[in-house]
């Protein structure tokens, strides 16, 4: 079934590229406004060849790893705390909901004032972008564990830490994993926005450089790279984990 989905997508992609090529060849717009796939491909090969894409990707992923790691750590701690206390839920939980509505890039000016124009500022934006949704998912996951599991476990002698680690945590895991995946995609967006706005290596900077050089081929090529990395990590890593968990937990809905 997976193979069939991939095949459908590949056919669609090929058709899309052919259509793109035809429109570009029709000459409705000049090629510096509407590049052809051939030119974009050559820009991409060039970027791969001179390793600028590789270095950009490494710089971006390094920031992601740190920022997202910190966000997961803080989010799990805050989420667990909020789920355990009504007071925290009404105070910190509500604040988190509010903060979550703030587009993460709005943190950048503050981050620059605090940390200066360096990696720390960008990583801060990544953390700020992801931590809210992770916190809320962890807290919701724990709060929504069916009471019957907890009651059953308690009558079998589970309490304290063992109740949490053996029952609450696994019961909440599917929601937590979804929240962490969502946090990842927020983090990725925040990172790209941050890298666009100020210069210091990374894929966002390559994109910005393309604009400054009026090189639309590079702009589109980098966009494709950013999209592909985001898509691959989300698909290959997070969706795989999420589906594994959901299948094992018996939560998979069979599509007809």
């Amino acid at each position, binding site marked *: 079934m997976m193979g069939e989905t991939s095949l459908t997508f590949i056919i669609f992609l090929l058709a899309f590229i052919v259509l793109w090529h035809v429109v570009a060849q029709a000459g409705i717009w000049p090629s510096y406004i509407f590049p052809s796939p051939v030119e974009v491909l050559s820009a991409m090969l060039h970027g791969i060849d001179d390793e600028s894409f590789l270095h950009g990707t490494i710089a971006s992923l390094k920031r992601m790893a740190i920022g997202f790691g910190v966000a997961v750590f803080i989010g799990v701690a805050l989420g667990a705390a909020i789920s355990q206390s009504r007071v925290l839920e009404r105070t910190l939980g509500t604040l988190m909901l509010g903060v979550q509505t703030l587009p993460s890039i709005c943190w950048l000016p503050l981050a620059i004032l605090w940390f200066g124009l360096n990696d720390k500022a960008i990583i801060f934006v990544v953390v700020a972008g992801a931590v809210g949704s992770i916190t809320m998912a962890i807290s919701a996951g724990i709060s929504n564990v069916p009471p019957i599991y907890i*009651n059953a476990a308690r*009558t*079998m*002698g*589970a309490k304290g830490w063992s109740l949490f680690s*053996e029952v609450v945590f696994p019961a909440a895991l599917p929601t937590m994993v979804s929240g962490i995946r969502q946090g990842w995609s927020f983090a990725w967006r925040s990172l790209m926005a941050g890298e666009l706005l100020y210069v210091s290596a990374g894929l966002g900077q390559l994109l910005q450089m393309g604009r400054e050089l009026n090189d639309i081929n590079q702009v589109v090529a980098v966009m494709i790279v950013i999209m592909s990395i985001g898509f691959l990590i989300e698909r290959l890593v997070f969706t795989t984990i999420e589906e594994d968990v959901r299948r094992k*937990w018996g939560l998979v809905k069979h599509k007809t």
Partner: protein
Amino acid sequence: MKKERKDGSRPQGMMAEIEIRDVWKEFVMKDGKLSALEGISIGVQKGEFLCIVGPSGCGKSTLLSIIAGLTRPEKGSVRVGGREVSEPGPDRVVMFQESALFPWLTAIQNIEFGLKMKGVEEKERRRVALKYLNLVNLERFENSYIHELSGGMKQRVALARALAMEPEVLLMDEPFAALDAQSRDQFHIELQQIWMKTGQTIIFVTHNVSEAVCLGDRVVLFTYRPGRVKKEFRVVYPRPRESRGVPKLAAITSRILGELRVEFERYMAEALHDGRN
């Protein structure tokens, strides 16, 4: 510890294993308080199979939850084996009406869960779990996840999980309510056979009167809200009993149903009266 039950009689000459003394419970609702239990007093002998029947909402599940230590009464006390109940404990395991099995564990891991909490080491845990999995005839499904099992199989695992704790008292909250009639009949026979071997004290809550009569040494009938003890019926008949087609049991069932009908009419009249106000 085996007991003679071939004649269907209760074990003789023992003090009450479970002593429910004047238990009151109310719930706070949006529009005032709802009295769930009013002055419930019941003594249950060691090794007795007690069934509690009553209309839905009569507080019978609440009472079970109080005995389990999951809910606290406003007034009154419950003593199990001489000790007052203040929190849940593995001496009083509950089998719930819906499957409370853990979906992230396999059948055997679910059965091992309570033993793990008790600190039983892994090999011994597996041995005991397998023994009870065999007892409920599910040995082939050792490594199945819960969602891979049918409703009846799930309740078998739940029963094995409760039994594996080897509790003094087994509390069963409408455990077969969601099953089809055929599986339920089968369960009734098997549960009695298992109980004749294990000799546990069982409190079994149900709204199904013929089920209660089939299983219980004694059937306690509750009134509708607030729950009070309305009447008690003793059932003396050899085991394992069939849940259908036994004239003597059918006669007791229809007597209880008669009482229930009176109770139902009282409730309807009150509801009508309340509706007019």
